[in-house]
């Protein structure tokens, strides 16, 4: 397909669909790829760790663009609690580096092969989100390459900034439609000295703990996660009458042929957990996010209907077949027209993950 101009960065991406696979080494390479794609009208699938490639309506690519080589930690200022890293860095690698100085970027706890850019572009949150909020509250600066090959930066490398519109926050969960994320500055959080995972706690007393790090429910267990000073931890364990285990032992997401994300108003989390029961679930209390797994799609339409009625959503994250058995997103957002016009300014030929967003955007 006449893409000799990209041959120097061609590669083979394990598990990716057929097409021209490229792994840019520099931001300029990304510019080159996207410009070529825009001129030729070739769809581009952006590939981080490949953990969310079935989410949404993934396009049949002409080009698969791996961010894997854009993976340096450019600056880490532990004393300022900020880090600047390439989009292709593995979340595991980044968090373990930060952990060396007892810091965290509050990214997903079991990321698998997921990359920083992938987690941000798909808007994946941490299990600590009820206390420390989602990824959009962690990004301070994003550099991205728009579909038509412009390098655009938004935000800054300081913890507070209102200069200009927050394009960097809008890029979270945008699947590259406003630009392929190439570099990110994150606000870090210090990890306190002591922590504990508390199980079999008395639910009544748990509800009296102010802002725990996380309160998680699965089909057969409740777990409270706490961090702070050693005295704090002892106190919380005593107060909740549970069994405390030192350290944070995060549960894995439920496994199954179909994986889903259910979002409801935070106050309806417990009700949602009851409702999804036959499926496996992991509910993040206080946030309204539930991660679900099932072996078939029976009941999905009803569950989605209920969720949408109360202002939430049910999103199909992964499925065994080629095509999703139902619309992965559900009802399209009411602001579709604004979203479409916005994307047109950043990706006029609509080549980065085209059609992948709700409403086929």
């Amino acid at each position, binding site marked *: 397909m006449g893409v000799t101009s990209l041959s120097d960065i061609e590669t083979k991406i394990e598990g990716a669909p057929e097409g021209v696979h490229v792994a840019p080494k520099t931001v300029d390479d990304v510019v080159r790829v996207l410009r070529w794609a825009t001129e030729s009208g070739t769809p581009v699938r952006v590939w981080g760790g490949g953990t969310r490639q079935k989410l949404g309506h993934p396009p049949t690519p002409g080009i698969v663009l791996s961010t894997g080589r854009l993976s340096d930690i450019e600056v880490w200022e532990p004393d300022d609690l900020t880090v600047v890293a390439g989009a292709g860095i593995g979340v595991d690698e980044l968090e373990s580096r930060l952990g060396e100085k007892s810091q965290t970027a509050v990214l997903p706890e079991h990321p698998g092969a997921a990359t920083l850019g992938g987690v941000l572009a798909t*808007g994946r949150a941490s299990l600590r989100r009820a206390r420390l909020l*989602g990824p959009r509250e962690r990004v301070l600066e994003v550099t991205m390459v728009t579909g038509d090959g412009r390098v655009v930066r938004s935000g*800054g*490398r300081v913890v507070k900034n*209102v200069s200009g519109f927050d394009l960097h926050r809008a890029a979270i969960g945008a699947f590259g439609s406003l630009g392929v994320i190439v570099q990110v500055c994150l606000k870090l959080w*210090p990890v306190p000295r002591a922590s504990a995972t508390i199980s079999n706690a008395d639910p009544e007393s748990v509800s009296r703990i102010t802002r725990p790090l996380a309160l998680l429910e699965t089909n057969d267990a409740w777990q409270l996660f706490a961090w702070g000073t050693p005295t704090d931890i002892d106190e919380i364990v005593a107060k909740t009458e549970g069994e405390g285990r030192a350290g944070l032992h995060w549960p894995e997401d439920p496994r199954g042929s179909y994986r889903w994300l259910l979002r409801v*108003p*935070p*106050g309806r989390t417990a009700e949602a957990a009851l409702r999804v029961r036959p499926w496996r679930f992991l509910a993040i209390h206080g946030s309204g996010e539930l991660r679900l797994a099932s072996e078939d799609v029976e009941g999905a339409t009803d569950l989605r209907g209920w969720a949408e009625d109360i202002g939430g959503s049910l999103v199909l994250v992964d499925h065994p077949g080629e095509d999703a058995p139902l619309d992965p997103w559900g009802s399209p957002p009411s602001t579709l027209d604004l979203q479409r*016009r916005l994307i047109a300014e950043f990706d006029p030929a609509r080549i980065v993950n085209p059609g992948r967003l709700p409403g086929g955007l």
Partner: protein
Amino acid sequence: MAAIAELRDLLGSDRVLDDPLERRLYSKDASLMRGDPVCVVFPGDAEQVSAIVRIAARHGLPVIPRGAGTGLTAGASPMTGGIVMSMTGMNTIEIDPDNQAAWVGPGVINLDLSKQARPYGLHFAPDPSSQSACTIGGNLANNSGGPHCLAEGSTTSHVLGLEFVTADGQIHEVGGLAPDQPGLDLRALLVGSEGTLGIATRILVRLLPIADDVRTLLLDFPSVEDAARTVSDVIAAGMVPAALEMMDQRMVMAVENWLGAGLPTDAAAVLLAEVVGSTATVESEASIIAEIGRSNHARNVVIAVESEDRELLWKGRKSAFGAIAQLAPDYYLHDTVVPRTRLVETMAGVYEIADRHDLTMLNVFHAGDGNLHPLIAFDSSDEDVARRVKLAGEEIVDLCLSVGGALSGEHGVGVEKRDLMPSSFSALDLDAQARIKDVFDPDHLLNPAKVLPQGSRCFDFGGVRREVPEGAWV
């Protein structure tokens, strides 16, 4: 004027004001810049906002949304004339304790929201020093901060959703109680857009539980450097206190003179720190901060436990800007942010600039965030002084940007900082911003000529928009 007659038909004459005195009252915010509006309108709901916007569009009149007018960058000043839309009549509060949230009208006063939430054990975290006057709509539009945004983040982290009206009069709703609504997060763009993309007509905010226990510390230092180093050291020690604020000696003297909060006037700088959480946490964190302070030569450390004592300390801090009035008729202030590791050297540089221009500068700022507020008190009727104030301001911005800082941490860009935007962003970055404006408001009807300098849309040639760029500019 035909537009005014139409507005009167819509709202009634008592909610459309156009006599010279009223127009003068609404001709500026708390900055130095004044405009001249055609009239001031007071809508009561989103439908009226939409109808007003349509009338304005038909007559080619800009619409300038306004909260309480406490903004510091001329965001609500009608510099291009037009209709000032005061949102203060839209001030309902519906607390939703089950979801720890509230739907509020944009005209709700910040402090009123926290007061109403208190019986539920909740509060609204962003607490600008102007919180007894400023509105949630203004907070949203400016993505305002406040002392307690250090740990909790600025307004954007507390806006779950909003209803807003675009320049074509359409009413939209984005976000909601459930997290991560599928599709683009337009809320992220609306918050902090300074009334240039849409007019917020209803806002869904997150409320946080009131902390179990609190300690407020006052540390006083023989030098600004010692105080600044304490800030850097506290952050470097892996702590994010609820608040970490600094005031220099001049500022403390002005405050003491005004309301006598008991702050030490002989200290070169004072730090106000607050820690929240369980009693065990606040006690241990307070003692660590005190220790770090002492190792940086703090002469005195007061730890306030009782709420009256803590409130008095805060009153001194939150009244700081008000205290300036005794010194000079005007003040000009910047709002740059620097990395916290560069605080000591930046502060030294900022003082050097003021001294060199022979200006009276006071400092009161959100030190924990690295968010400086160097404030120059002066008399704007003296042209030479006014010139030096502007010059010094530009040097301060340059200095802060040169150490990796940002132009504005919380006050916004408005008109005052607008033409400094190119010092922070490339032409392509600004072009991207200008495209966002064009999507929401193609005719630049909403708060025009704010935030982005003229010509930001660099690839617009004579109004012809090219569909597929050729890439000659990268």
